[in-house]
């Protein structure tokens, strides 16, 4: 192509604008101080956040990275820090308790995480489509109560429920074994009494999982209810005309349409469950994770290493390992579910 072809066409007299009339607008003189104030104004508004973020998030974060390469007992003061390189990470890799805590964490994450959603999704669907709105609000609020109740209070109540000799759970199982119709199903109960829910290594994890399910299912019900409410009635009507029964409407229409909500709730569950601390800590009496460390989660172990054994460097290293694991688990979730989950119905 020639240069001429590339150059813009000359403006014809018809296309060029007539000269604008002279105007005499009055402009106030620019003040330098005001300009400086204007440019600083946005920073002044967001400075409270920046200061708090730097003080309580950025500094601890970077300090914990630094700390993970040190050997440090906080009792000795800052001067007691010794640089040890990657020794804390190497020791963590060789630490059987850490591996055990990771196993427990993943076990609890799956066993307490999956049922939350399997229960919450259909319950939310029924609440939205089968219950009058006034009653639905009451029921949803009731189901949400465990989530806003202090974990310490919840764990203490369950501690008494699980009590081997006086706990209501064992009493109920015994009672059930004496019932005429379903008694046969519980015939094994008297032989194994008293069931030591919190002091038998193979029962600790299920006991903790039950508390986690009870506490967080209500939260997921609220999320899924919000999701189901967003599905337009017209789409259900179209599904009915297309021949769907109630179950098919749920499976083919409602469930795919709340995909973004499922993705969000699952992300929260993965992150939350991999950081499980309070429930196992209180149910195992803040000991070393219960009998045979069966209830020892990684966050719990992190606490023991840092605050019981005062090995802050090792604790920092473990915290970064846990962070990495959570990041990987979340990335896998995003990889497999992210596209459809975040795409939503756009």
């Amino acid at each position: 192509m020639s240069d001429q072809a590339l150059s813009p066409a000359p403006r014809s007299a018809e296309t060029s604008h007539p000269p604008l009339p002279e105007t005499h607008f009055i402009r106030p003189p620019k003040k330098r101080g005001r300009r400086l104030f204007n440019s600083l104004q946005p920073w002044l508004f967001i400075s409270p956040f920046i200061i708090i973020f730097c003080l309580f998030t950025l500094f601890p974060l970077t300090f914990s990275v630094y700390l993970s390469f040190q050997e440090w007992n906080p009792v000795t003061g800052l001067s007691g820090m010794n640089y040890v390189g990657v020794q804390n990470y190497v020791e963590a890799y060789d630490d059987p308790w850490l591996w055990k805590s990771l196993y427990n964490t993943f076990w609890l994450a799956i066993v307490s995480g999956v049922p939350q959603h399997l229960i919450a999704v259909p319950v939310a669907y029924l609440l939205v489509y089968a219950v009058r709105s006034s009653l639905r609000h009451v029921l949803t609020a009731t189901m949400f109560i465990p989530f806003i109740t202090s974990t310490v209070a919840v764990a203490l109540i369950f501690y008494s429920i699980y009590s081997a000799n006086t706990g209501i759970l064992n009493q109920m199982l015994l009672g059930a074994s004496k019932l005429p119709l379903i008694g046969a199903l519980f015939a094994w109960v008297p032989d194994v009494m008293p069931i030591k829910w919190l002091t038998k290594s193979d029962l600790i994890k299920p006991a903790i999982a039950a508390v986690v399910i009870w506490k967080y299912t209500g939260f997921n019900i609220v999320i899924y209810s919000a999701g189901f409410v967003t599905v337009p009635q017209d789409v259900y009507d179209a599904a009915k005309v297309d021949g769907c029964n109630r179950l098919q409407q749920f499976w083919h229409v409602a469930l795919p349409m709340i995909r973004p909500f499922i993705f969000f709730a699952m992300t929260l569950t993965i992150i939350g469950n991999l950081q499980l601390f309070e429930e196992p800590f209180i149910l195992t009496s803040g000991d070393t994770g219960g009998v045979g460390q069966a209830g020892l989660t990684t966050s719990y172990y992190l606490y023991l290493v840092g605050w019981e054994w005062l090995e802050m460097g090792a604790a920092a290293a473990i915290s970064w390992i846990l962070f990495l694991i959570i990041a990987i688990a979340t990335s896998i979730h995003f990889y497999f579910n992210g596209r459809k989950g975040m795409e939503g119905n756009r």
Partner: protein
Amino acid sequence: MSSLDLLGISKSFGATEVLKNIDIHVSEGEFIALVGPSGCGKSTLLRLISGLDEPTSGDVVLGQHVVNDLTPRERNVAMVFQSYALYPHMNVAENIGFNLRISGVPKAEINQRVADTAAILDLTELLTRKPSQLSGGQRQRVAMGRALVRNPSLFLFDEPLSNLDAKLRVQMREEIKRLHAKVRTTSIYVTHDQIEAMTLADRIVILNEGIIQQVGTPKELYTKPANPFVAGFIGSPSMNLLEGKLTQSGDTIQIELDGGVTLPCPQTAPQSASGRVIIGMRPEHLHLGEAAAGAINITGRLDHVEPTGAQNHLKVKFGKNTITATDNTLQDLASNAEVTLSLPTDKLHIFAN
């Protein structure tokens, strides 16, 4: 394809009676439009026919069968919704074939029928797209395809064009008309747009406050409206409706309009019309110009002109009344000028008030 009979259908929501004793017969292959203002019960009636709602009393008869207790699926009706109600997570092909999938039709047959339907509606290139990637007109066609693929016994349209712009609406209207001429499935079409109803339907049912006002062909409704509501509803611009009373002066009967103007009453005035009346004059029947012999002549002052391009709408004041007349000659008229409008006597509508 089957006929439809609505026998004494009533529907109440709590104390509010939305439909009152509706009786309609729709023949096989007929295209019926349900027209009326917002809230008149036309969409409710469509939902009762589809099976999405149950009537409080009365029967819905499809073919020879009372279908009150049947689900929408069992009635084999297809419905096109105002919002299209496409499944956002499915692509066009899945949306169209969903009903067949639910009904357990083999996959090969679904693919074939979806392809055939897509070809009819010019959707073949769009089959893999999601609804969010389609324009309003394309979504509307997908909604039509979803209904069409099933070979239903009855088509139900719930204001399917109301979300489209004016140009697309005209285009889709033609497409619906063409489709109906091709498949000849009995169709019920709900709209509040009388132009849509007039252009598409074999017969129109006009509803107001849950009561049928008139059933007839578009021409019947236009030429012989049963009451002032129908007269005002059909036709654009709306018919001029003026209140007055019939008075006798010697042998001649006159119409004395509220405001003091008197018009001659034509011989065609119905026997039943006496005392207080409402007279109707269609704007397109009011001719601008000199007073014509044997016609009703009205002289007034031009209030303002509304140009529409093809014609001007003249707002003319006479007495205390303002009427609209259409001027196809597009004359330049000054505001407040004196104008004379003439109306053939056989075009004057008189309703008992």
